[in-house]
């Protein structure tokens, strides 16, 4: 009986020890912070993961995510300093770096997201509102993002939060402006196309004109050379004739006239009305051969 009692008592003790042990031990994982609260008061902040013990039933443990957390904001229309409207959406990456402070000011990740959202939005308006549209889109988006990050970080410090990054995901034109841009792009391209076609015409006409000019030059030069050659030929011919015929101009006149009659008066196209008085017919009526007038061709 005694040994049975010992057994029962032993069993109870073992069970109680086990319950206390399990109630007292807790783990904080690699991705978490732990806060040990005693009646609502923070007694311990745990940053390193591992196995920890607390007083069972008295202490409560809260864990917070230690990883980089994300906050994506929907797109919103912002006015840049040059009055242009831009649709911007951002995403923020942050991490809890002081779990105690975070717990005291934010209580939960959801609460932190709500607070951060308004901080990010107002910072976005401020930073973009100070910058020109071109700065946002083209020249210094990186600088603006850094500025936003440091400003948000400044404001979030009191909440035990460290801002890892605030980035502009998109910075686009509002729908209505987009249509205007499309129209401008279209007209720009149309102008470009017209310009290119006109250039084609210009080049084409230029090439044709140059070709025509070249042709004219070639022909003109050829004609010039031809005339020169012909002129030289004529001069040479005249010189030859002059040299030959100059020996007796009187005989030449006679000789050449004879040739001219022969070639000039052809059969079929010449009709002569002659007087028998002409020199040719001088023996017609007078065998002594008196001179008469020369023959006259008709027409």
């Amino acid at each position, binding site marked *: 009986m005694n040994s049975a009692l010992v057994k029962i008592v032993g069993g109870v003790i073992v069970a109680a020890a086990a319950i206390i042990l399990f109630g007292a031990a807790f783990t904080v994982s690699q991705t978490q912070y732990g806060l040990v609260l005693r009646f609502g008061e923070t007694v311990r902040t745990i940053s390193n993961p591992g196995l920890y013990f607390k007083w069972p039933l008295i202490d409560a443990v809260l864990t917070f995510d230690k*990883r980089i957390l994300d906050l994506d904001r929907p797109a919103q229309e912002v006015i840049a300093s040059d009055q242009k409207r831009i649709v911007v959406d951002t995403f923020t990456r942050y991490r809890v770096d002081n779990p105690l402070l975070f717990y005291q000011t934010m209580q939960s990740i959801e609460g932190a997201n709500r607070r951060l959202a308004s901080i990010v939005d107002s910072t976005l308006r401020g930073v973009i509102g100070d910058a020109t549209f071109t700065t946002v889109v083209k020249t210094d988006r990186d600088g603006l993002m850094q500025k936003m990050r440091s400003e948000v970080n400044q404001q979030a410090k009191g909440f035990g939060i460290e801002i890892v990054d605030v980035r502009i995901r998109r910075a686009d034109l509002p729908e209505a402006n987009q249509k205007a841009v499309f129209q401008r792009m279209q007209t720009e391209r149309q102008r470009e196309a017209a310009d290119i076609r006109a250039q084609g015409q210009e080049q084409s006409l230029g090439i044709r004109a140059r070709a025509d000019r070249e042709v004219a030059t070639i022909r003109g030069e050829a004609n010039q050379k031809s005339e020169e050659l012909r002129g030289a030929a004529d001069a040479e011919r005249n010189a030859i004739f002059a040299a030959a015929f100059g020996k007796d101009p009187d005989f030449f006149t006679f000789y050449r006239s004879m040739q001219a009659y022969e070639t000039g008066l052809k059969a079929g196209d010449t009709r002569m009305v002659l007087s028998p008085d002409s020199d040719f017919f001088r023996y017609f009526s007078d065998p002594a051969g008196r001179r008469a007038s020369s023959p006259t061709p008709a027409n």
Partner: protein
Amino acid sequence: MPWSNQSGGGGGPWGGPPKNPGPWGSGPQGGGPSGGGQRPPDLEDILRRSQDTIKNLFPGAGGGRVGGKGAALVALGIVAIWLATGFYTVRPNEVGLNLVFGRYVGTTLPGLNYNWPAPIGSVIKPTVTEVKTMEIGVRSMADQRRGARSPVDEALMLTGDENIVDIDFAVQWQISPTAPQDYVFNLRGPEATVKAVAESVMREVIGKRNIQPILTTDRQIIETEVRTRMQDVLDRYKAGVVIRLVQLLRADPPAEVIDAFRDVQAARQDQDRAKNEADTYASSIVPVARGDAQRVVQEAEAYRSQNVAEAKGAASRFDQIYAEYKNAPQVTRERMFLETMERVFGRVDKIIIDPKNGGVVPYLPLNELSRPSSPPQRPGQLGSNAARPQDAPR
């Protein structure tokens, strides 16, 4: 591992007696697959220690020796089996991350590994060799069904010269093989972060450039720049992600204006065509003109040779006749006149009217004279008229 057990214990297939015991021994109380593995903890030591712990925990029970050795053996067996569940395998495309009480204690490579069994230890095995592809801006049916963010919004981006381009791109990334623990422990939603960073960086890079280079020459540069900048940002987050490749799948003008852009291309073709046509025209007329020019010059040369030769011939003929004529001028002159007239009158129509007889009115039927005959040449005009080839003496 059955192989090492065979060769170590029962003798290999080569039949020789085992000179040494297996490298890991074959501790039977280790249970199960203790024969192999990378570096198993010293199981006997562990068992002995846990035995001691149990003894220390229950000094009363130990002192009483109530259940005897049987109960102790059963407890030992249970502990041994529990410890044996700590073995796990890591597949070749994975690494193992060992956690003890939630704390990351080390990385293991593919093969058989050991960690403390649950609830003390746990293992996370991320796939590190797989290259994942994320397409941004691509209109897939699945996206539309899910009602996800309109891909058109994702795809349209503002360029530096305030134009809009339609960009689809793909990011190939993988969990960093050297720092998989960063991927697992550092970010909540690492995949969403990769996508957000990709979009943000691509828009930033596109925003710096003008539309024309984006559409044509700068594609490669954009891909490289986006990749390096994404890597920079993710490294700053310690995301444990390696960006392998950024690929521009499409960089087009938006659908609303693409016709105008295509028309520019067409205009370039038109320009080339106009130029080619003009070149064709030029190359067809210029050689012909050169040929013509040669012909004209050659004709002139021919004229020259012909006329000079003819003149020389005529001069020579005259010289010879003149030489004869000088011998008997009167007779020769008469003879030549008569011979010529003989030939001329021999072939022309002639009417001889004696004016002394009078009374005949010459009637000329002009309509029958279709062509006026050339007027008689006067000797004085001969020199200049002789320049015309048709008048040259035969």
